[in-house]
């Protein structure tokens, strides 16, 4: 069976597997569908979740499109959402359908033609419509989180609502843009909200009924005696996590503490904000936590994808977790224990005075927001952000949409202790795609993106990297050295492209502006 876990060894084998997958595909589509078992080893031709699979590597095993033929890539179809806003979601592909989301909207699109199969529109609401990451699919359900922090389960056949549950109270300031993660019989849903001092929470929802199974709080829920977080709230888990089925641990990055820029009111490290947490998938119990930014005062959520890699580290095979974090540092952790193996910057940083014995950067108090302002790198956009990186196993490169930027940070007691509680202003920044050697953190190559802006990243087993620049281009690069091999000016690319195979033909699907584009190699007249 051709699966994502399999790394093809030779072209002949790949061709054989491709033919095999082609034969099996209708079976996979009609009988297997997306269920907990399938998600453990998704077929190579599928992209059934936000990250494509549980590892968060955003790496497709498909090899039809190669560095040698990518220059022939042509438009197979385009789907216009008709919305004014850009696509920030990663589409997903399952059952011959591409599912796409924007705030309040979900579409099912025929993956062969780009034709709309159905559209769902959530009722008008006052929630925060900042963006949307994507849907989740399970059996015959499609799930959509909403700007007012509901979770809506739709019928995959026709987009009709099957149930709608409240995840968090939007009146308090919560919203959701989250692409839920299905693990076993749990649908993990995160929320956002740091204009207000709100506990950080992640909920496990029964995917069939919508009932809550457990809630994990990254900062204490209301009524908790004492304050293990040092008085901080926040630590929202608004990005989709990853999962190790053997350890049965879910890995999620947590957001910044609130009040955001007022550090003095919340002394100490403020666990578990700006952290990577490992949770038991069935109970939500914390197995371990690692704080990438102790006592953050710069809005550097550690929400970026915790990428799971089984690979050598200093000569020993290990279960690793890689994160290029918003604070500008790259981390390698042992994902069984949460111990740090490597901490090193991958983008412009000037805020830490060193690395402590546990592998955490030590914040320099002189770079905390101050009355007269401090010039800090990264700026609030971070050394990277929600745009997914990709890990290419063949080269051992984590390819990251990096950002070198500076901002000014202000805080004075008059700013208070609620919500933002301070001021910060961007000064300058630019996007650079960086290929990080996973064992050393060294930058093997970088590719200038031409200004402010960047996109998510896809790598494929044929040695291609697909992403977007700061202008209007989707780019295909050679993974080994970052050289540009193909581009198309489809509009600003948002989150990561995906790849799938249908009818034996490989597609690369990517959002440009408010439209979705599917590229493939040309087919002869038929």
């Amino acid at each position, binding site marked *: 069976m051709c699966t994502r876990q399999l790394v093809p060894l030779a072209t002949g084998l790949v061709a054989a597997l491709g033919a095999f997958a082609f034969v099996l595909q209708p079976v996979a589509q009609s009988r297997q569908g997306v269920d907990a078992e399938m998600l453990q080893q998704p077929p190579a031709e599928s992209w059934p979740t936000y990250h494509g699979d549980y590892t968060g590597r955003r790496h497709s095993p498909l090899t039809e499109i190669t560095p040698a033929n990518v220059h022939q890539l042509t438009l197979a179809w385009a789907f216009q959402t008709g919305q*004014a*806003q850009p696509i*920030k979601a990663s589409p997903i592909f399952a059952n011959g359908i591409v599912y796409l989301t924007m705030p*309040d909207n979900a579409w099912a699109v025929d993956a062969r033609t780009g034709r709309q199969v159905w559209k769902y529109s959530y009722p*008008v*609401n*006052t*929630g*925060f*419509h*900042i*963006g949307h990451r994507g849907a989740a699919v399970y059996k015959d359900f499609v799930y959509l989180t909403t*700007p007012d922090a509901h979770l809506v389960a739709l019928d995959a056949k026709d987009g009709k609502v099957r149930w709608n549950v409240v995840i968090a109270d939007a009146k308090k300031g919560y919203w959701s*843009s989250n692409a839920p993660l299905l693990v076993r019989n749990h649908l993990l849903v995160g929320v*956002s909200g*740091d204009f207000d001092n709100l506990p950080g929470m992640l909920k496990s929802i029964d995917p069939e009924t919508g009932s809550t199974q457990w809630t994990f709080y990254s900062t204490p829920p209301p009524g908790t005696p004492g304050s293990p977080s040092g008085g901080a709230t926040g630590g929202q888990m*608004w990005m989709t996590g990853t999962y190790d089925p053997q350890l049965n641990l879910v890995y999620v990055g947590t*957001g*910044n503490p609130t009040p955001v820029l007022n550090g003095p009111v919340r002394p100490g490290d403020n666990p578990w904000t700006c952290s990577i947490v490992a949770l038991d998938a069935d109970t939500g119990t914390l197995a371990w936590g690692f704080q990438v930014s102790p006592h953050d005062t710069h*809005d550097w*959520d550690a929400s970026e994808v915790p990428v799971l890699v089984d690979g050598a580290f200093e000569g020993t095979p290990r279960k690793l977790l890689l994160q290029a974090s*918003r604070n500008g540092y790259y981390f390698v952790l042992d994902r069984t224990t949460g111990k740090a193996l490597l901490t090193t910057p991958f983008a*412009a940083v*000037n805020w830490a005075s060193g690395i402590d014995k546990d592998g955490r950067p030590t914040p320099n108090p*002189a770079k905390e927001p101050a*009355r*007269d*302002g401090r*010039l800090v*790198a990264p700026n*609030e*956009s971070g050394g990277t*952000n*929600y*745009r997914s990186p990709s890990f290419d196993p063949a080269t051992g490169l984590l390819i990251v949409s990096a950002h070198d930027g*500076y*901002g000014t940070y*202000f805080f*004075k007691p008059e*700013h*208070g202790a*609620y919500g*933002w*509680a*301070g*001021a*910060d*202003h*961007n*000064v*300058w920044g*630019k996007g650079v795609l960086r290929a990080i050697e996973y064992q050393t953190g060294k930058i093997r190559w970088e590719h200038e993106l*031409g200004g402010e802006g960047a996109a998510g990243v896809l790598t494929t087993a044929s040695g291609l990297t697909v992403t977007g*620049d*700061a*202008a209007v*281009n989707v*780019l295909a690069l050679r993974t080994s050295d970052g050289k*540009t091999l193909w*581009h198309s000016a489809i509009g600003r690319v948002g989150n990561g492209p995906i790849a799938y195979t249908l009818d034996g033909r490989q597609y690369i699907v990517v959002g440009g502006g408010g439209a979705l584009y599917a590229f493939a190699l040309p087919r002869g007249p038929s």
Partner: protein
Amino acid sequence: MTASLGLLRKLSLAGALVAASCAHTPAAPGTAPTSPQPPRGSSPAAEARPRTVATQTYSAQQAQAGEPLFAAHCGFCHGRDAMGGETGPDLTRSALVAEDVRGDKIGPVVHNGRPEKGMPPLNLSTGDVAAIVAFLHAQKTKAESNQGSRRSVEEGDLQTGDAEAGRRYFEGPGGCSKCHAPSGDLAGVADRLKGLELLQRMLYPSPRSGAGSPATATVTLKSGEIVKGRLAYRDEFTIAVRDGSGTYRSWPASEVTFTVDNPLDAHAAQLAKYTDEDVHNVLAYLQTLHK
């Protein structure tokens, strides 16, 4: 905070700059200004909002009806509270909103968009636009009553530098004097810009809205023709300039040779070199450059 909110903060400053520059638009001679001038040179975030020109009353229901419409159609750029979002300005500080009377200014912008600024036209019914207008005026009133905004930076907060040390840095290690002169382009800068706005523009003077890039390019074509002009566009594959006549011309980057001179590159390069002390010293020095 969400990713995009990361951008929100910085862009809300950009938004404030847009609003500020609108507010600074001088009135034609002999006519009364349509909006009172804000205190000159105050920082954008601390700047007074332009005052609504005509008192208008809307029912609470109208404004309430506009809130979800605004959130759905406008919030992704302007923020759900209209106070600035990821790519759009704070509308409670907008001169256009201040001058609007029952949608006469806002309505056309909603219907036609502002394609040059990335705002798409929105196909909304007259009733929906009216509700959004009511919501915007209500938000503006609300913002005006919310004094002491949690994000303000006052001019007085920034007075920790040493002007003499700043002058030495300006003329020496900062390299500022390679491009700038206190008796030339910076003469009177302390009168034109103050506080946060002066600080931000000292660190990196982003082109004002609509001003375009200050970069120039010299493009040599295969024919040998040399075209010089303002850089209009550049990515890996294409370079474009507005030539001396103002005409837009573009070429495949691989078919020409070119050089780009961006005077702002020196500002970007300096960011990694400044200490916070340098920053405040240079600011103090600039604050002495009165006319």
